[in-house]
């Protein structure tokens, strides 16, 4: 299992960093910082999703996310990494919440200090009318995290196929990754690629398997303990549920 995770694919920037490296590294070591920086750049979107819940404005959320990561990477954030049950996801969410509550405090102080006494209606209005369709910030974070994980794994698979010269195969076959659909088209596809039906079935099956491995590796990269991959995947799947 470890070999799968650390195997670099040719031409792809498949992440070999593991969350273990970050949590075990001492705060000021260059390896720890680099590992953390890599992980952060990969899981940028979930932080944006979390911030967008309160800020509503996509651009403002991005800006604040940028500030957050700068703060994270500069500071001693690694110090309390061990407390988060070995999950990068929990760690990042905790850090963002912490950062954001400080940010709001600072904003409030600024507003009061600036002599503006009237209460910002936008803020309270947004609070008091909960939109049933919109998820809570934690749920938004988790959902975006799950999306990011799946997207990364799919992209890694695509890059592998491209590296093997099978880019068009990937494009044609990728609908099958969501389960068997439009079964009748398989025979036509097989004929067009010069394969018989069974060969195509096997190729699809292998692609699915590879996707599964990549997805598991992606998830495992954010965990301390590889044994927790199944549980984490279940949690992420639940986060995707409507």
């Amino acid at each position, binding site marked *: 299992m470890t070999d799968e995770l650390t195997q670099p694919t040719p031409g792809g920037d498949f992440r070999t960093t593991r969350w273990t490296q970050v949590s075990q590294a001492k705060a000021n070591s260059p390896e720890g910082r680099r590992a953390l920086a890599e992980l952060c750049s990969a899981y940028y979107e979930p932080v944006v999703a979390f911030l967008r819940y309160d800020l509503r404005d996509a651009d403002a959320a991005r800006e604040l996310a940028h500030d957050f990561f700068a703060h994270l990477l500069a500071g001693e954030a690694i110090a309390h990494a061990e407390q988060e049950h070995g999950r990068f996801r929990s760690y990042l969410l905790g850090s963002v919440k912490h950062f954001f509550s400080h940010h709001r405090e600072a904003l409030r102080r600024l507003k009061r200090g600036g002599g503006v006494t009237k209460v910002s209606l936008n803020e309270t209005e947004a609070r008091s009318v909960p939109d049933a369709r919109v998820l809570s910030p934690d749920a938004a974070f988790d*959902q975006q995290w799950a*999306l990011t994980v799946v997207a990364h794994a799919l992209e890694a698979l695509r890059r592998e196929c491209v590296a093997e010269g099978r880019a068009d195969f990937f494009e044609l076959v990728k609908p099958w990754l969501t389960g068997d659909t439009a079964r009748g088209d398989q025979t036509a596809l097989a004929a067009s690629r010069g394969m018989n039906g069974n060969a195509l079935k096997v190729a699809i099956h292998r692609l699915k398997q590879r996707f599964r491995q990549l997805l598991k590796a992606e998830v495992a990269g954010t965990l301390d303990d590889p044994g927790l991959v199944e549980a984490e995947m279940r949690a992420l*799947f639940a986060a995707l549920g*409507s």
Partner: protein
Amino acid sequence: MASSTSCPKCGAVLPLTATAGLCPRCLMAEAMAPTQIEAESAAQPPLPLEQIAPHFPQLEILECLGRGGIGVVYKARQKILNRFVALKLLAPERVLDPKFAERFTREAQALAALNHPNIVTIHDFGQAGGFYYLLMEFVDGVNLRQLLRARKFTPEEALAIVPPLCDALQFAHDRGIVHRDIKPENLLLDKSGRVKVADFGIAKMLGTANARGNAGELAAPENATQSTVGTPGYSAPEQQADPQHVDSRADIYSLGVVFYEMLTGELPRKPIEPPSRKVQIDVRLDGVVLRSLQQNPALRFQQVSEVKTLVETIVGDAGLPPAEPAAQPVSPGKSLPTASSNTNRTQSEQKGQQRMHRPTSVTVFGILNIVKAGYGIFVAITSAALFLLAPADSNIQVIKMLHENPAYAAWVEFIIPLGLLGCIVLIIAGIGLLCLKSWARRLSIAYAIYAICTGILATAVNSIFMIQPFFKNQQDPQAAATAMAGLIGGGISVCLGLIYASLLLLFMLRPTVVAAFHPPAQPRMTPA
């Protein structure tokens, strides 16, 4: 948020741009659910028991019974009621339909209302720890697949199973519930030979909203994971073509397939060969089987009860007494309780199966029991003869004591018959072991305990009696020596007896021996 429509397959509303236009939820679900081919060799372990137990505080989770396409089944004990139950956890990634919770509850309620001796009862259902679960009756037995693997059924045995099966199905059909997945893995037989149908309606519970099912499409092996189309080989043609609109006649088809497989040992192939051409059965049974297997539902039996009536008529006419489940333990090696089968082939086949499974060490102990008992009887008889026939003025120490010491005489009168009784019990146990009777094992254990207790008692009492004269005749070395000799001699034979009894006891408690008499029968689930 990028505009995203709801996925036609799972109904989730998620952005698709990051995942090349594919629904992320479906991608993940598919990646989490192992495909049919992998499921059989999957190293994916079921959840460790410690992770499940906290979610079910009222249960003691004992062991994992099996894993299938639907989920994992555990054996558990309800602590307060102190009864065994089966806990089935439905795998979350199988739950693709967002309206699952609602359907699950509705289906589970309908199933809970199915209270029939031949249907596995549902005790409870709900959600815990992220899983949907079903709490069911625990059936201590085997499933039909295991029996089929062991050997083919005789016609009588098959005919014994079909009527109660029909009862169960008719009962459910009368209440508007179709099983949709009748196959040998879902038919359990308990220790008394009673058949129980499991997993009623689970298929419908897990069914996906098959909006794009094309008519006339045959289910490929990969589609077997979608339970609404049933299991290939057992599901009716109309079920594979249009899973949303099946009725009770689909169950009749599946029953026909199972019946065929029980009789011939194979699945019916096109063109269908009547079973009577493959095995020696009443030709009228052909009619029953073939009519059940009609491709057109309108041509099949319309009610399961018709099948039962016909089968019972045939059985009655042929002069075979209708078989009833008798109270006998069932194992792959033994025959099912049936009417007396009058073919020699079957009887020797049964005996042959028995011999194949009996460990030779059981034979050894069976013989040893008889030998030891014989020796014991010999000793008892000669001792009795010695005591009864020896003249009163004999020089032998024990004879003197017998006549001088009334307590000793009473003791001898007590211990010899007791010994004889033990030997008789031992002979019976030995014969029982050789015939692999289940009571023989328990009898051997009882004898061993009895022998150990009486052996210790006898040693103690004999020692007391022997030591008395020893102390009395301290000045007489010869008498002392004789006393000592008597003590030791008696002691040795008692020791040997004790050793044998201990060996017997330990041997009978060994798991392999227990298995030979009570084979572990667990309903094993194979991927749907």
